[in-house]
């Protein structure tokens, strides 16, 4: 699983045990059995959780997506409607298409920019010898705070018509606008908030950079390769597993963004649907309109899309992700 490649040393391999003597075989078998039993004892909370909190709800959601269930009326009124919800979503729901557009725009611009920023700063920081720990912690701080309601409110205060951002622009003689309320710019302020949280992937990049053997650079220098060539022929290929990991994680997390968009637009996804991320549409349908069946169908389309993206990543990964130890 490529998820483990971030920066772990190879997993310790248990030492080979000598084959057991004949007389001990029975005892060994009993020990193995009791270990197997213990395994299930320790695993039981998770197993129950997997079935009750994950698998059953997923099946329920799949079933609901073919019904008109609305949580308010009793179960007797639930009707099987076949593919009606799905058909409605694709043919009669302009908000669905709007939210797909907004989510894709957000993902295709904000996620690459965030990764470029985090890699760039990691490269700068990697060369530094002193103060690395302090810089790293400070850059990481927004990743801890940025997803909160409080920071979304700060963004509103900074980017509204009379906020600090416009006061800053006016120094350069530029007249700003109410960025939050402008359909052309509202999503951009959201992207800035996302990119501002570049610290988490940066920490992972930094750890990855530390793993690149310095001999490679020394050899390249002897051969007269420029810094530019070293970056494209050593750093990037050696870092590709970490890039892959960050790209996958940021994409999946990015598509699930909710809080900032919800708070900044006061729950509407506005102005004019400009910040209507897909998750906001699910929330609206489920908890404002209480169309649980319809919302379940939306959620399954979302799941299918995320699954598809993951598959695409893993299947294209082998063409550009370079594993030096051949382990993966």
């Amino acid at each position: 699983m490529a998820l483990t490649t971030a920066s772990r040393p190879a997993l310790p391999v248990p030492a080979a045990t000598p084959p057991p003597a004949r007389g001990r075989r029975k005892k060994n078998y009993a020990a193995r059995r009791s270990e197997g039993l213990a395994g299930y004892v320790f695993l039981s909370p998770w197993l129950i959780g997997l079935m009750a909190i994950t698998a059953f709800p997923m099946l329920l959601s799949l079933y609901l997506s073919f019904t008109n269930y609305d949580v308010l009326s009793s179960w007797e009124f639930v009707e099987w409607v076949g593919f009606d919800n799905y058909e409605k979503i694709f043919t009669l729901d302009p908000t669905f298409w709007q939210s797909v557009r907004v989510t894709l725009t957000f993902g295709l611009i904000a996620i690459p920019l965030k990764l470029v920023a985090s890699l760039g700063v990691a490269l700068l920081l990697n060369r530094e010898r002193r103060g690395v720990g302090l810089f790293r912690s400070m850059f990481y701080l927004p990743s801890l705070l940025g997803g909160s309601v409080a920071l979304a409110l700060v963004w509103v205060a900074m980017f509204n018509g009379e906020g600090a951002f416009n006061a800053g622009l006016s120094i350069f003689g530029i007249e700003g606008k109410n960025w939050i309320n402008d359909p052309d710019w509202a999503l951009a302020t959201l992207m800035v908030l996302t990119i501002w949280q570049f610290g988490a992937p940066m920490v992972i990049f930094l750890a990855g950079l530390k793993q690149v053997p310095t001999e490679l650079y020394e050899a390249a220098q002897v051969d007269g390769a420029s810094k530019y060539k070293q970056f494209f022929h050593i750093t990037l290929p050696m870092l590709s597993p970490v890039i892959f990991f960050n790209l996958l994680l940021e994409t999946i997390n990015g598509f699930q963004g909710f809080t900032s968009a919800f708070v900044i637009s006061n729950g509407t996804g506005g102005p004019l649907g400009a910040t209507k991320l897909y998750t906001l549409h699910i929330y609206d349908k489920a908890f404002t309109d209480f169309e649980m069946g319809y919302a379940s169908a939306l959620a399954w389309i979302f799941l299918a899309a995320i699954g598809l993206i993951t598959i695409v990543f893993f299947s294209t990964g082998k063409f550009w992700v370079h594993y030096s130890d051949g382990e993966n």
Partner: protein
Amino acid sequence: MARVRGWVRVLALLGVLAIVLYPLIWVLGSSLKSPTEVTSNLSVWPEELTWSNYSDGWSYIPGVSFARFFGNSLLISLATVVANAASCLVTAYAFARLRFWGRKGYFALMIATLLLPGHVLIVPQYVLFSEFGWIDTPLPLILPKLLATEAFFIFLMVQFMRGIPRELDDAAKIDGCDPYRTFWHVILPLSRPALITTAIFSFIWTWNDFFTQLVYLPSVPSYTVPVALRLFIDSSGQTSIGPMLAMSVLSLLPVFLFFLGFQRFLVQGINTSGLKG
């Protein structure tokens, strides 16, 4: 030449640092500014300290003060910390150390749930918990955590336990320990760093969480801090910006203190598992 390049690098880093920290310092300073100054004064330092923003914000929502919201948030966050740490530790022990039928398959399933979007589960879980009559109580936010639903922490702990020398388990086995006693006497004490990391991240994530709390806590007295903060924006008149920023600062404070106290654990945590902040 090399020295010049070094200075340019440091300057670039300081520039990035200024951009990164500006909003945080700005909100701290602005929470002490008078209403007119919040908008006109770009400087982070207020001309006149206006502490009333804090008292106004504290009782901004009629009938319920922020003390209640902080209490609710604290209860849910601390309960989640305990539930996550305990349930994920035993699960991780099974995956990292015990051999049983189906282990690899289960492990793959666990990793798959890492990638499962929460928005897919929220509707059916809401239906389920409302059948139980749990809406508007902290139960749907806490009880599931007892069942190790946070796969991130299981993964983090499995990674950590794989680094504990197996010789220690073997020695315990030779001394007559069964898997339960090995867990209690060897793995549990040695897993303290992973437990601390899990506890910190559990606390911060739950404290910052908005989506599930918004869904499960519909009435004002059961609101947590993030859900209550949102009320400030309903009437985004100029006068409420100061109190809004003041309460935002208070809500960020616990996370910030955790950050100051446990930086090392946080950074190590991301490194071992790619945990998100």
